């Protein structure tokens, strides 16, 4: 059986590497990118089953841009997105502002440091 595909986008290379190892060990095919642009390219190329997305990379909301682009994409808008970030309060406000240009709603959100098993459970719920 084909393994489910996950794209991890995070500007923290340690996170993409270690989370990548974790998800591979748990039976997923993992692709990683360390910025929004590369992440978007990877999503278009790999057509993943789920995206694990750091919503606040470098330029404050570049992860939000990726999320919004996925949600607006005719073929990819249904891909589940799990948002992650170290800045919980700021993100909460952002998720509530539907008027923002880069607003999008992830399927789930985890605050860093996120419990890997909790993330895995959620992934299994969404695409398992």
């Amino acid at each position, binding site marked *: 059986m084909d393994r489910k595909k996950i794209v991890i986008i995070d*500007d*923290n*290379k*340690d*996170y993409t*590497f*270690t*989370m990548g*190892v*974790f998800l591979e*060990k748990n039976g997923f095919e993992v692709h990683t990118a360390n*910025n929004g*642009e590369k992440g978007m390219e990877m999503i278009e190329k790999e057509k993943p089953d789920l995206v694990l997305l750091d919503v*606040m*990379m*470098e*330029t*404050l909301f570049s992860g939000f841009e990726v999320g919004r682009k996925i949600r607006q994409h005719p073929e990819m808008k249904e891909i589940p997105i799990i948002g992650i*970030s*170290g*800045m919980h309060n700021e993100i909460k406000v952002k998720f509530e502002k539907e008027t923002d240009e880069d607003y999008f709603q992830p399927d789930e959100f985890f605050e*860093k*440091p*996120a419990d*890997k098993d909790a993330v895995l459970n959620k992934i299994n719920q969404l695409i398992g």
Partner: protein
Amino acid sequence: MNQNFQVISSSPDQLYQMIIDLLPCYISIQNNDLEILYTNKSFLNDFGEATGRKCHDVLKCSAFMCGECPVKKSFEDNAIHFGEDSVLTREGAPIQLLVYAVPIPAGRDRSVIEFSIDISKIKNTQKELALLGRSVALISHGIKNLLEGLHGGEYVVDEGLREENWPLVEKGWKVVKNNIIDISMIAQNILYSSKKKALTIEKVKPGEMVKRVVSMLNEKALSMGVSLRAEVNPYLPEARLDQFTIKKMLINLISNALEACERDREKNNHFVVARALAYNELQYKFEVEDNGIGMDEDMRKKIFQEFFSTRGTSGTGLGLSVVETIVKEHQGKIEVESVPGQKSLFRIIFTY
């Protein structure tokens, strides 16, 4: 009148005048046109002769009335009003005032007394507290990211050990080590920012210091895909430095340069060079140059501010402020050159 007061003033009028002049606040009486009719001594001392001039002319050097004028409001409804405003002293120094306007009920020619208290110190403390709040948040986010890295690295090492997969152990261990370096840097910067310690000046070879720090950070640079190298003049005389703090300075500068490279997506090959070279006969220089993301003029002005960070959630905003303090403590000078999108160079000049 009380006997004691009679000793220092001959009449009640003189006593009241003295009290008004001694009060640590500015008092003026103004008419409906905001023309100043009277000022106390504190007002005169700090804002100069104001009688006959408009309040906004004296306090703000402006021909126009202030937007929210408590005095004007008091004239309108005959009630007490207050507000805060920034004004300029006669020397041109900006101060923040808490202003109360109290109407004087006196027949047809009504007037309003304006009492103002200098609250600049309170305002500065408020700003510092707000900055402190933001800094705690910034530092917490930085530490959270590093903890995430440590946990992740630990997991990969465990997995590698379980499977006896030594390349995986090695990769995981690198993640752990890099995060340990970063955590120790943050902890040392916090400590350095929070308490001042006397320098321990010793004779040191500047080139040796650069080589030591470069070799310490080499592995981290490699894992970030950046080529880090030292360029030193081995014939530089020994300099009088505090080794501990200069090492911290170099670690901060090189770490920043590595980050600047990591954040640059335009170039394929990145380098950071740390140098210790002669500047002139009496001075030598440390330089850290990178071909990373660069800075614009606006950012260059802010980088030495405490708790200013360009690194989103990963910076604590302490690194370059610590560098500046260390350079000042050694009576040195910092020069910054940068071209956005191309390069940055930090030059620290010290006298032997």
